[in-house]
């Protein structure tokens, strides 16, 4: 099946006064129609930079230095502003971090969604778009009567649902959700995640979830990419990543996550702190924190390779590692 989105060797750098920040360095992945993918990483690892590159919503000092982003065969990197505007919302929609706070408090929520539709589809009449918003409200589990309410009359979960409705308003092929549930309470988060997964299945959309919370990603994503310091270090289907993690960082993340189910396991900590991406080194960026690092890791950058079918890892010692882990256990 032809992938709906293909990112190839994407490099997005920020030029700052202090030097070059390699926010996204050699990122490659594909996303098929109807597939949901999770992008996991700590703050500052470049996951938001990747999504901003896909949307071409780049800050003034940000450049796509290298690489291609193919959306339905068209290279987003090379499109001009007018063409990219057509793709935004209608092709790829985005739910921004803390988007629920971005609703304008002085306009009715329904009108804000209608405005988004009319801005992108000038042929649609007001009545048609209103009907469409009512449909969307039903889809995301909101009462269409609430369209004429103002944002302050919505609870946090309802606002987030409205934002999801807004992102669906132009029938996009892909939705990128950047930390869609971070500001929400556990119970509401659970409801929203279920709703999003349901809608995605129903509309056969592609979805990219971005989160720092590996448990949230495990709930919704079929495919998971683990990012560390501007690079994807491991990418595979969810089960492989969780059951047979190959990169030491992934292993560390899994075992440092406190779990509520099953036996209470001892928490394993990853020593040190994520590196500064400013003038990042040319060797493996995880080497300073890695318990398995060898001389090689401090000298070269490991290649991003397919170690088994559909399992990509950027590490010199993925095999070694598996033995060591089983020894520890």
């Amino acid at each position, binding site marked *: 099946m032809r992938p709906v989105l293909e990112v190839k060797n994407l490099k997005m750098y920020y030029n700052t006064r202090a030097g070059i920040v390699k926010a996204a360095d050699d990122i490659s992945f594909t996303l098929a129609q109807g597939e949901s993918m999770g992008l996991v990483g*700590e*703050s500052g690892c470049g996951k938001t930079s990747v999504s901003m590159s896909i949307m071409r919503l780049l800050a003034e000092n940000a450049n796509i230095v290298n690489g291609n982003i193919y959306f339905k065969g068209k290279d987003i990197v090379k499109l001009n502003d007018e063409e990219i505007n057509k793709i935004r919302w209608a092709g790829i929609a985005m739910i921004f971090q803390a988007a629920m706070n971005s609703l304008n408090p002085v306009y009715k929520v329904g009108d804000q969604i209608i405005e988004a539709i009319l801005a992108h589809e000038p042929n649609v009449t007001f009545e048609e778009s209103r009907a469409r918003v009512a449909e969307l409200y039903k889809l995301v589990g909101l009462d269409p009567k609430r369209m004429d309410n103002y944002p302050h009359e919505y*609870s*946090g*979960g*309802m606002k987030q649902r409205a934002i999801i409705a807004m992102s669906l308003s132009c029938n996009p092929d892909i939705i990128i959700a950047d930390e869609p549930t971070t500001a929400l*309470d*556990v*119970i*509401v*988060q*659970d409801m929203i*995640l279920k709703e999003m997964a349901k809608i995605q299945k129903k509309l056969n959309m592609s979805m990219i979830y971005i989160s*720092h*919370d*590996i*448990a*949230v990603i*495990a*709930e919704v*994503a079929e495919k998971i990419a683990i990012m560390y310091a501007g690079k994807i270090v491991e990418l595979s289907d*969810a*089960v492989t990543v*969780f*059951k047979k993690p190959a990169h030491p960082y992934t292993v*560390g*993340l*899994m075992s*440092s*996550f*406190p*779990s*509520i*189910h099953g036996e*209470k396991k001892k*928490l*394993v*900590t*990853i*020593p040190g*702190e*994520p590196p500064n991406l400013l003038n990042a080194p040319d060797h493996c960026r995880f080497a300073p924190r890695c318990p398995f690092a060898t001389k090689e890791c401090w000298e070269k950058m490991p290649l991003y390779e397919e170690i088994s079918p559909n399992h990509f890892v950027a590490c010199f010692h993925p095999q070694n590692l598996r033995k060591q882990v089983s020894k520890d256990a």
Partner: protein
Amino acid sequence: MPEVETSNATDVVIKVEHLKKYFPVRRGTFARAKQFLHAVDDLNFEVKKGEVIALVGESGCGKTTTGKTLLRLYEPTDGKITFLNRDVTCIHSAQDRKWLHSKSQMIFQDPFESLNPRKTIFDIVSEPMNVQNEGNLKQREKKVMDILNRVGISPPDTFLWRYPHELSGGQRQRVAIARALVMNPEFVVADEPTSMLDVSIRTQVMTLMMELIHEMHMTFIYITHDLAVARYMADYISVMYLGKMVEYGKTEEIIQNPLHPYTKALISAVPVPDPEFKRKSIQIKGGIGKAIDPPKRCRFYERCPFAKDICAKEEPMLIDVGEGHKVACFLYSKN
């Protein structure tokens, strides 16, 4: 009727009886507040020396208000707080206040906001000693170095004269912990100390705190919205809902055998980092509201899938259902 049995033992560090904290709800500029938000409503518990209690609940359940009221950042509306066998509900003299604050401390949620950006690390960590007039400069310096070393800021002398913005989030939270512990407090309230940190840093800070709690034999109240974190940190878990304590018990007992429908829902909603794990979920309705002059009934009534008639008429009391596991729900009352 006391809901928590009174123990005579002197090892009770803090004891709370019928604690209430109401906030006036503003109605217009000139009108006097006629409505009150019941942020904490009739709370009873005690913490013994060396115990860690987690206050768990969603935002707006009153867990932070409880913590701040215990440390007297807020004046309690009603009730009694006994700290180290002294009544600290009403503090009148500056001396009493200094005594209380030399024995108790707080760790805040946001390490970016809880350190004054215009002070150096040395100023920040030594401030409690400064305020309490403890030791001379040399002694303070030594203590600051020791505690920084202990919390993993090393080598400490390279950090002393830096400003908070030069430190990473994890380091700042370590500094905040050092500041809280520099006076060897008996009792510490930690308000979501790890929720703003990254996963890998969070585990480091959690492990550090656990070590320090055991080492310094401190009494801890750990406020969190994350049951999984509470499971790792606490000996006891107390689940709060709209200002009320709905369930209390030993950590593993609460996690493995939750009784209150709200606790059940909360536990079932925690995402599991395992794609093959299928959670059994309990559907509860709507989101958390606000306890503004709540009617006299179970506060979970509107959302509870198991609500009975009595739940709408009376408020459930926190009752012991065996081995110190307490729950405030009519499903478990004997009559």
